[in-house]
């Protein structure tokens, strides 16, 4: 009788089931052992009991669920109405407006330099010494000369921002858009000439 080709399918189902149970049992035991090793190491290394605290201290840190108060028990809008004294101008400012006020008051931050430049460009006198510094910074950043900046600002404000031609001009200029601010006059194209006049005539396009 040839018995070499006994396959598992010839084993009856109960034996198969028993085998499967055995495998499962081995796996569970592996899991248990793994846990025991982990715990044992934690105990011997001293970190097993680290997160244990007594009940009383636990109560101190429970989550708070009251209205008007955050989960730590702190009132979270008590600073809304407080007022702070500005160290620069010694004014009393509301807390939520304090940061923007400081920006303008100290002359730091993005907006304050823009505002200062605008004021200078339109010829106002400002008392703040910081604005001069801001101006120079601005000049250095953009590699302009001071005069060109004035010209550029003037040209920009002369163009009507609402006219549809604005998008057209971008199309035709392509790369020239960046060079609009240069003081040199390029007479090779009509477009450059037209830019020097305050009004752009419709006939150009």
């Amino acid at each position, binding site marked *: 009788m040839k*018995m070499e080709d*006994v*396959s*598992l*399918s010839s*084993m009856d189902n109960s*034996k*198969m*089931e028993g*085998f*499967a*149970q055995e*495998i*499962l*049992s081995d*796996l*569970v*035991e*592996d*899991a*248990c*052992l*793994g*846990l*025991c*090793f982990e*715990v*044992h190491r934690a*105990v011997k290394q001293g970190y*097993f009991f680290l997160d244990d605290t007594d009940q009383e201290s636990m109560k101190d840190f429970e989550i708070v669920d009251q209205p008007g108060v955050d989960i730590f028990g702190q009132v979270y809008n008590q600073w809304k109405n407080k007022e702070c004294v500005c160290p620069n101008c010694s004014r009393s400012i509301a807390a939520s407006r304090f940061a923007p006020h400081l920006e303008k008051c100290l002359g730091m931050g993005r907006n304050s330099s823009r505002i200062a430049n605008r004021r200078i460009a339109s010829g106002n006198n400002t008392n703040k010494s910081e604005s001069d510094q801001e101006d120079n910074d601005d000049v250095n950043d953009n590699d302009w000369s001071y005069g060109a900046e004035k010209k550029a600002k003037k040209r920009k404000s002369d163009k009507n921002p609402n006219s549809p031609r604005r998008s057209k001009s971008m199309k035709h200029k392509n790369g020239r858009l960046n060079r609009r601010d240069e003081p040199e006059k390029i007479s090779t194209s009509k477009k450059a000439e037209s830019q020097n006049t305050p009004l752009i005539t419709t006939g150009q396009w």
Partner: protein
Amino acid sequence: MSKESQMRAAINQKLIEMGERERLKELLRAKLIECGWRDQLKALCKEVIKEKGIENVTVEDLVAGVTPKGRALVPDSVKKELLQRIRAFLAQHST
């Protein structure tokens, strides 16, 4: 019976070689953590440790104290799922 045990040995070997045993182990581990079995057993371990004292507790103490309960505490759903996978593997690779 030796043919049967040969068969079992062959299948066990296949289980390991194909990486299926590792996958089953990982699956079991994940399921046991999910269902809170691991935390239950950790609490049991704490009791054993408190009994024996931190300095003197050995791995054998833990294993002996915890494993029998550990086997019993495995939820039936987890057992079922694992058995399903094992049976599928056996059916696939039984020749």
